[in-house]
């Protein structure tokens, strides 16, 4: 009787273990299929500081990185992204969004030779801007297509002194 119970216990444990393995397999499969996107970028949780460069890497499935920038002072800033010149599948692309200003968006595709992208924005103190980093290829990816971007980049925000006369504002 005891031996029978032990065998039943072992069988149950094996079943649970195999179920666990099955779950692991399922998660890894889902993990392989998971891709971030323009509307669902991977939040790095990093707040950019003026004048400091931040290095990171885009990989297949994680081709959209989201940073945050909250200026203490209003004024012009240059958001810049630099990737290795001539990289086969990483062509620098920056997208800046101001959710507090009617979701105003500024985007730029970098110089194909230098792979440097610059987007200049007149920011408002206290607003939090989304700074989204990706590759031009990802921005044009058809639905269901697999991201192939796999390469390093650096991103920064730098204050600029610009003295435009009053325009349409």
């Amino acid at each position: 009787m005891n031996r029978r119970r032990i065998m039943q216990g072992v069988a149950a444990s094996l079943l649970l273990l195999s179920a666990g393995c099955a779950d692991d397999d399922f998660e890894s499969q889902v993990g392989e299929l998971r891709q971030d996107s323009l509307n669902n970028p991977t939040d790095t949780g990093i707040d950019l500081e003026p004048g400091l460069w931040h290095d990171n890497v885009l990989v297949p499935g994680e081709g959209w990185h989201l940073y945050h920038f909250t200026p203490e002072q209003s004024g012009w800033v240059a958001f810049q992204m630099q990737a290795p010149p001539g990289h086969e599948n990483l062509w620098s692309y920056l997208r800046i969004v101001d959710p507090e200003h009617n979701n105003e968006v500024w985007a730029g595709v970098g110089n194909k030779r230098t792979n440097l992208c610059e987007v200049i924005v007149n920011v408002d103190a206290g607003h939090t801007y989304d700074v989204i980093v990706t590759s031009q290829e990802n921005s044009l990816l058809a639905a269901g297509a697999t991201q192939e971007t796999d390469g390093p980049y650096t991103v920064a925000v730098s204050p600029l002194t610009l003295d435009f006369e009053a325009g349409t504002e």
Partner: protein
Amino acid sequence: MHRTNPLRRRAALGCLIAMASFTLPAWADTIDRPTLVADKPLDGSTEVTGSVTLERGFPYHRYTAQTDGFVRFQMETSNLENRPNDNEGVAWRPYLRIISVSNEHRHAEAWSSNGHQLDTSTGKAELVLRVRKGEQFDVITTLAQNFVRKRPDARANYRLVVQEVSP
């Protein structure tokens, strides 16, 4: 030998023409094939006005930098005087796109902004670039609405103000 009645032949031809004009789009341009506004180039700091129509939804102006420094493009939209209630009376959201003309320094750069309509009578968009004297850019002045159906889908007047500054 069977001979076609000339009247029937003309009627068939008429039908073909009518079908062709029904199936062919009334618009000619797209975001990838914008229409050059050749009589309004942007040479340095300047200002132009124009209109986005169902026939020409993606007008563009050729800008030539007159200085080394920075340039600011500001686009403003407003509803047509005879169509004040378009978009429920709110000026259409502008969409400004700028594409660099490649040279020894530049290659395939582009920028865009979809602006805002915080003042309902005017939609506004703004882009600022670093430029060298003599560089050229194509400045496409269209509406965010034209991306919804990927063709000209709304009418508006626009004003484009260009200002250059040296650092």
